[in-house]
């Protein structure tokens, strides 16, 4: 793609110059809001950091469109389930922004068990001139009050307030893996391993269960829900993926309980494939509707597949992300890397898809030109405003200069979470505890 890059690296770790990474700083989710002005990240420590894009000004052309920290708050705390003697992690699994309806911004953040609705609002004025209170808020001595005044709003330094508005708790027995806001802007769903619940954004004490795949006898459990999303335009449609690699499209108009799917998207597995780990590698880790609503994209361990909603038999496109790992599945199983859940993202026009890989590589595929590129998010290899150099993994034979061999890939450096700006070519890529924001200045609208 030849991106001309303006690189920003925001490091959340205290020990930034060393390789040690505080586990709590590991970014676990990244999400742009609907305009792209705000970017939210959640980490394993339960914190949410919101970045805001600077307004483009002619006076400072070099700082156009850079993202700066806007607000930081603690969303979730570790909890303890006394009944089951289990600790509930505070790690933020997903953040989803609500479409903006007034001056304030709202986002949903969730950990394994509880979803919270946060209101993010700005305050840049404050009232001054109270009659009964002085500037510090202390009560005035009434004897000193001789004149009545009308309080006026005076400008103040911008203050961003984040307040919890709703807490949706105690609805999930299993670990929540997805939340998705409906296009009706009134409801949203939350999905755990076996159930999907439908909530109203204003009601916290009850939710409706719309999908339940828990078998009567748990011994018969064969698959779990891995991701779920509402259709971007049709408020009655939702899709959920399973650990078996299938997608189920459900229509909420058909029945209250959507256990019976309207469409089942499944690609028949090639029986000659690898045996031991084929069930793991076919498990879908992420599903995303295209902005148009016509396509869906799924990510499993080795591939990204693009599906047409009108064709259930097989995906229309399959992209190999790191097929060279097929021979390494056993060691990846040993070190648990095979269970990594990679996300994927569409660009604004649905022409390019992006997903992460190991060694801090991430890949982009242009669906029209069929070109692809592998890029690396690392401090050593990119300087701010430097153009990212395409990388290549040598899969065998002679290794050319600048190529990396499969064996020297660092499997501890993985890009699991990423987001693409809704309209522009700006991407946010989370590499462990670092967030990289790349812009394609060549193509972005400027001036």
């Amino acid at each position, binding site marked *: 793609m030849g991106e001309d890059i303006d690189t920003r690296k925001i490091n959340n770790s205290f020990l930034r110059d060393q390789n040690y990474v505080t586990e709590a700083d590991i970014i676990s989710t990244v999400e742009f809001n609907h305009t792209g002005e705000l970017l939210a990240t959640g980490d394993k420590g339960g914190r949410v950091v919101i970045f805001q894009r600077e307004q483009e000004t002619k006076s400072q052309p070099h700082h156009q469109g850079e993202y700066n920290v806007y607000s930081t708050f603690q969303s979730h705390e570790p909890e303890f389930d006394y009944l089951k003697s289990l*600790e509930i992690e505070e790690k933020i699994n997903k953040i989803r922004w609500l479409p903006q309806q007034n001056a304030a911004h709202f986002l949903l953040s969730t950990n394994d068990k509880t979803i919270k609705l946060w209101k993010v609002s700005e305050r840049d004025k404050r009232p001054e001139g109270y009659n009964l209170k002085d500037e510090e808020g202390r009560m005035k001595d009434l004897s000193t009050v001789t004149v009545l005044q009308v309080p006026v709003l005076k400008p103040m330094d911008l203050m961003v307030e984040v307040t919890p508005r709703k807490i949706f708790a105690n609805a999930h027995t299993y670990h929540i893996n997805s939340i998705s806001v409906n296009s009706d802007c009134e409801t949203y769903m939350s999905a755990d391993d076996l159930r999907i619940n439908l909530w109203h954004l204003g009601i916290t004490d009850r939710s409706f269960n719309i999908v339940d795949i828990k078998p009567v006898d748990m011994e018969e459990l064969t698959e779990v829900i891995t991701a779920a999303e509402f259709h971007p335009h049709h408020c009655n449609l939702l899709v959920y993926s399973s650990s078996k690699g299938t997608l189920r499209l459900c229509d909420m108009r058909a029945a209250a309980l959507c256990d019976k799917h309207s469409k089942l998207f499944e690609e028949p597995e090639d029986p000659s494939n690898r045996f031991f*780990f084929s069930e793991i590698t076919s498990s879908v880790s992420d599903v995303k509707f295209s902005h148009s609503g016509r396509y869906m994209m799924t990510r499993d361990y080795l591939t990204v597949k693009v599906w047409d909603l009108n064709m259930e038999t097989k995906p229309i496109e399959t992209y190999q992300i790191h097929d060279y790992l097929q021979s390494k599945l056993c060691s990846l199983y040993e070190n648990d890397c095979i269970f990594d859940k990679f996300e994927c993202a569409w660009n604004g026009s649905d022409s390019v898809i992006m997903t992460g890989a190991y060694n801090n590589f991430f890949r982009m595929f242009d669906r029209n030109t069929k070109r692809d590129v592998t890029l690396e998010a690392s401090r050593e290899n990119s300087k701010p405003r430097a153009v990212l150099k395409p990388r290549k993994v040598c899969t065998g034979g002679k290794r050319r200069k600048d190529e990396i061999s499969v064996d020297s890939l660092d499997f501890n450096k993985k890009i699991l979470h990423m987001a693409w700006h809704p309209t522009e070519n700006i991407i946010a890529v989370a590499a462990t505890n670092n967030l990289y924001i790349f812009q394609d200045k060549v193509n972005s609208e400027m001036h």
Partner: protein
Amino acid sequence: MEFKVEAHRIMTISLGKIYSSRVQRGGIKLHKNLLVSLVLRSARQVYLSEQEELYLQQQQQLLLAQPGEQSPETWSDRTECEPPTEQSPSWAEMESNISKEQAPSWTEMGRTDSKEQPASWTEVESSGYKEQAPSWTEMARTDSKEPASSWTEMESNNPEQQAASWTEGQRTDCQEQPLSRVHSEERTDRQSPKGLEEGRTTREPRAPCRAVAGCPGRLVRRTAREQETACTRKRRSPEQGAAAEPASPLKRARTEPVVLQANSQSEEEQMETSSNVSSLINIFGSSFSGLLTKEESEGESGQICCDQVLGSMGSWSRAIVAF
């Protein structure tokens, strides 16, 4: 053979993962454990199928050698195999008579069944046991949909006539090294864990060994269900293993007194790491429940938990109950 080694290794790793998931922060992750159990099942099936094949070959050769000759055998362990009619002292448990009966039938059945799965241990096993428990094969076939993994007592069903040494060889090997049949093992008494002990008390990696090698010797308790052919169900090929039956046969509880956990489930399967605990495979009512509720077995090694998990592959009820 490489498959077997690999399969065993994968089984060991899987059990370790399941065990360590118990102590993970945030609780047991259902998805990951489901995947691990699927891998465990696949690996086990590959492992057992290979064992079966080897065993079948061995048996056939033994039978050929019955009249007194010893046909040239490349498998060194074959020399350790006892004639079908022999009963190693350790086999003294229930199965002895059964094995005797089966010895001759096995051969026949093995041959007739070979087309089902060439040189498949399963065939031999299942056919041999047809006499014993006609329901076994039937169950194997009809039960193929049953998700609950029944670790068929391949082990238990195996002809007890197996040379104890052969089984031992299998057993001792199973821990770390490639399970090579040729590995001759003493294990006559079934008591010596030979090398299986790795700081573990008993089960665990042995279990896979047991399944294969131990089969001949370790049958302590064989139920009709055990008869089921986990063997027959054996995948035709490793590739199929993973995709084939969702339900692997449950291992049958072995009479081995070393039941690690006092649980109320009827069956638990344990991996035996030593001959002492050999034949102790109890099938869990549910694999994870044992892991989750094993307060009393906290002191035991994770291996034991893993062993039990092995036996109850596919049993999720407890795990979910724990949730």
